[in-house]
């Protein structure tokens, strides 16, 4: 297991290098001049020249890259051109926010998606299955921003049940924090729940057809036990892997959701940074999310390992 993880990590290294090049290339890709963007309405040429020097914009690209990599390796991702804050600090600030959103959304997604998936697989072809599928598809096909704004208008403005937007750190007021995050997490969660439900359904359908489920029935086990223990346990493996792959979707969804609900997380940071050409921030965030993705996948592989006795050391 340890060796496996190690191997997995080593294999990820070239990917990470590629990602870093790619991420760095992003800034060369984007049009618009970051310095100009930060020079303000007045655009004093002297200041602009000074800033170019200060942020090493005049160096050759490979030099800039190496300098960036060197910094990144020591945990220094540069500073935000816009607010002068160190990017590492910004990320430190935003990460917990997005994690909270992601976790709550994931909880929504799991709590809705998995039971619905199991139910619709078990009741395949019935009206229950049909309804579950259509609801799931609705989750997939309603744009997040639309649902989000609708919810804000309905829940926050009309019913005044929940705060309209924003973010409260859990450390400050846990209950309020959860309440504030409820709508965004739901919006983000529904789309994921839909995906998860469909994955669960198809995994369960596959497993339910398998011989060992028939064996479990032949043993005389109660249907509940057959489904929840024998079938679900085996369907879990693909579900876990897919859940890790959902990470990307989660982050992408978070970008929009944070935009709508004005949540000061990763997604909002990165979109604003792209629009402001705040490269250090864009690079930092994309790097961290990409690493996060890789870590999630390694974890998923590890979970696969744990869940799948076939892979465990004999």
């Amino acid at each position, binding site marked *: 297991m340890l060796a496996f993880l190690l191997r997995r990590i080593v294999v990820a290294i070239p990917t990470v290098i590629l990602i870093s090049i790619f991420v760095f290339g992003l800034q060369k890709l984007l049009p618009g001049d970051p310095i100009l963007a930060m020079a303000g309405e007045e655009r004093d040429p002297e*200041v602009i020249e000074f*800033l170019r020097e200060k942020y090493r914009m005049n160096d050759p690209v490979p030099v800039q890259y190496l300098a960036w990599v060197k910094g990144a390796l020591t945990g220094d991702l540069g500073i935000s051109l816009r607010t002068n804050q160190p990017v590492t600090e910004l990320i430190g600030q935003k990460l917990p926010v997005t994690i909270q959103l992601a976790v709550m959304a994931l909880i929504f997604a799991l709590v809705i998606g998995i039971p619905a998936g199991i139910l619709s697989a078990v009741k395949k072809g019935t009206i229950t299955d049909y309804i579950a599928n259509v609801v799931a598809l609705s989750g997939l096909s309603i744009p997040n921003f639309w649902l989000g704004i609708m919810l804000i208008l309905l829940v926050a403005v009309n019913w005044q049940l929940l705060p309209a937007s924003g973010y409260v750190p859990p450390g400050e007021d846990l209950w309020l924090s959860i309440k504030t995050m409820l709508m965004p997490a739901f919006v983000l969660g529904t789309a994921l729940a839909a995906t998860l439900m469909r994955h669960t359904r198809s995994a369960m359908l596959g497993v339910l057809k398998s011989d060992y489920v028939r064996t479990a029935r032949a043993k005389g086990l109660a249907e509940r036990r057959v489904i929840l223990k024998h079938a679900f346990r085996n369907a879990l493996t693909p579900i876990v892997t897919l859940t890790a792959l959902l990470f990307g979707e989660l982050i992408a969804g978070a970008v929009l959701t944070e935009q709508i609900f004005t949540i000061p997380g990763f997604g909002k940071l990165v979109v604003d940074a792209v629009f402001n050409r705040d490269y250090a921030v864009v690079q930092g965030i994309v790097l961290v999310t990409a690493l996060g993705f890789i870590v999630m996948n390694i974890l998923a592989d590890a979970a696969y390992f744990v869940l799948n006795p076939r892979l465990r050391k004999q």
Partner: protein
Amino acid sequence: ADFRFALESDPDVLDPDQSRTFVGRIVYAALCDKLVDITPELELVPQLATEWSWNDDGTKLTMKLREGVTFHDGTPFDAEAVAANIERSQTMEESRRKSEVASISGTEVLGSHEIRIDLAQPDATLLAQFADRAGMMVSPAAAAEAGADFGLNPVCSGPFKFEERVAQDKIVLSKFADYWNADEINFDSVTYLPIPDDTVRLANLQSGDVDAINRLAATDRARIIEDPEIQVEEVISLGYQGITFNVGNGDKADNPWGNDARLRRAFELSLDREAISQVVFEGAAAPGNQSFPPNSPWYDSGTPMPERDVEKAKELLAEAGYADGIDLEVQVPNRPVSMQLMQVVQSMAAEAGINITLNAKEFATMLADQSAGDYVASQVGWSGRVDPDGNIHQFVTTEGGINDSGFSNPDVDAALDAARVTADTATRKESYDEARKILNEEAPLVYIYHDTWIWALDDDIKGFTPYPDGMFRLEGVSKSE
């Protein structure tokens, strides 16, 4: 009590010498006092400077400073501090204020609370600059210590002091107990929340999550005015929105639109500014054809807003050799209001035979292209300055810092330069009118309208006064429980 105010975007760095965003200035209104302030009628009034006087040739400004003022870190405010601030604005490499205080050649501390500012040549705009970021006083001690990072923890002398900032989430200021005008301040703290989406910002006000919002969308105005729980305040802004043509900025200027003023005038004639204001803003914007809004004392009534005249526009086109119509590519920031505006413009111009193609760009890209001269026409605006110079000089003078149009006309240069050096309002107005006449003919910039600042406030909030500079001043504002 806490005052929660929703902004339309997240301010940039909170250092008056470095900052460049409009919303940043709103935060400074609570955080940093300036040497002078303005009235809603744009008259200059004392703030940290209690009185001031010019020498005869307008090259020396002597200011008396308010006594008993301290910065948030306890550093006393005195003439030395003013001198240090001016030096900082002039010399700090990151300073964006250099051009604003470029005319200052030196300072002389005359007493603990008296200072003389020497100018290289007369500068009529200086006091107005002191009513803005260039006049904001930061604690010299803190500034010296933090250097370029001052904005992470700004120390000024305003009614509120900096508590914390979470980028894109909030900026929290708390009441500064030792503020010289503390009686006027009725809040214990103020929280600025950037909420970019108009609908969501308004929803926050409606749901009671914030006390007031900046920039209510014009299209929401009519509906919200009806809402008994919400009050709406508005004032015409100092800024403008319009279309800048590339008439001399690089190779791309060499096109019919850059070469022939008749085309630009024809374009202007095809527009119905009233209708634009009605359609896009439901009337909540002031149509205009100059860099100053029609209600401004600087407005030149000699060149009034032309009526829409499609026939005349066509004539002009024909005269210029485009009787069959002509294409025009306009770059436009991909923001909803600009898009909506340009679509209306597009359909109006089409009636005169001008086929506009919209080239939507992100703001950052557009800015870069515009300053590089890589455009034909561009839909841009300006947030406006108290002094008229700030709305025109740098845009149309040959050496102007933001002259993206590349316009150059010696008469305009002369008139606008002259307006800078006299303090006499009447003389200045004459100069501006003179420039206006030429600019009207040449039309490198076609002004369309002036935004109306619209604030929406919870009904409990009392005592708010709208200022044309768009700031939200908290003096005298209170919340009834």
